[in-house]
């Protein structure tokens, strides 16, 4: 069964460093998402991506964040200058069409020290 794959599973970085979280969505999917979950809190929407551009983003997704689909298979989330409060589990998701099930990756645990 096809799955959304995220790498790495755990990333530790120093405050102020740039990180790139990688995702390989399911191959025939068209809609891509990033969510995050700070420890003990709810899963929060960050951004959605369709047709090679951002279709919606939340207040959390400020100028420090960017997304890219560089080669037609990977979908990346970049945090330019990490802060301690960026420490969270980051989930990638993809769906085939607008109102179909979103499939989630295993998540990347980002720890900013």
């Amino acid at each position, binding site marked *: 069964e096809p799955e959304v794959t995220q790498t790495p599973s755990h990333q530790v970085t120093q405050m102020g460093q740039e990180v790139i979280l990688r995702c390989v969505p399911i191959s025939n999917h068209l809609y891509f998402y990033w969510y995050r979950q700070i420890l003990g809190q709810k899963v929060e929407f960050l951004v959605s991506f369709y047709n090679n551009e951002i279709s919606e983003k939340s207040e959390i997704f400020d100028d420090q964040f960017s997304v890219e689909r560089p080669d037609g298979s990977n979908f990346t989330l970049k945090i330019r200058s990490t802060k301690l409060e960026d420490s969270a589990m980051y989930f990638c998701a993809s769906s085939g069409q*607008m109102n179909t099930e979103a499939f989630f990756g295993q998540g990347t645990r980002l720890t900013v020290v």
Partner: protein
Amino acid sequence: AQRVTQPEKLLSVFKGAPVELKCNYSYSGSPELFWYVQYSRQRLQLLLRHISRESIKGFTADLNKGETSFHLKKPFAQEEDSAMYYCALSGDGGATNKLIFGTGTLLAVQP
């Protein structure tokens, strides 16, 4: 404001007992409601959605628009049902079908 509320952080029941995980929502239009489940060390996965009206693993959920609720129920809990359960909604007419999650309820089924 769009919001999903799951009032219980933890629900502990004995095997064979009925289960009800509560979910209330706030949304001005006609949202689509979902239950996602996350078993230990596994990814979030869709359990059921209100439009499909299916019963998955013995779980059902009915959308009550009057009470703005979408409670998840199962008549007889099994130990393998122990997991984190998230209620979520997706809005209508938006640019994408982003999901708005509740805080989740940890279901612990005791033997």
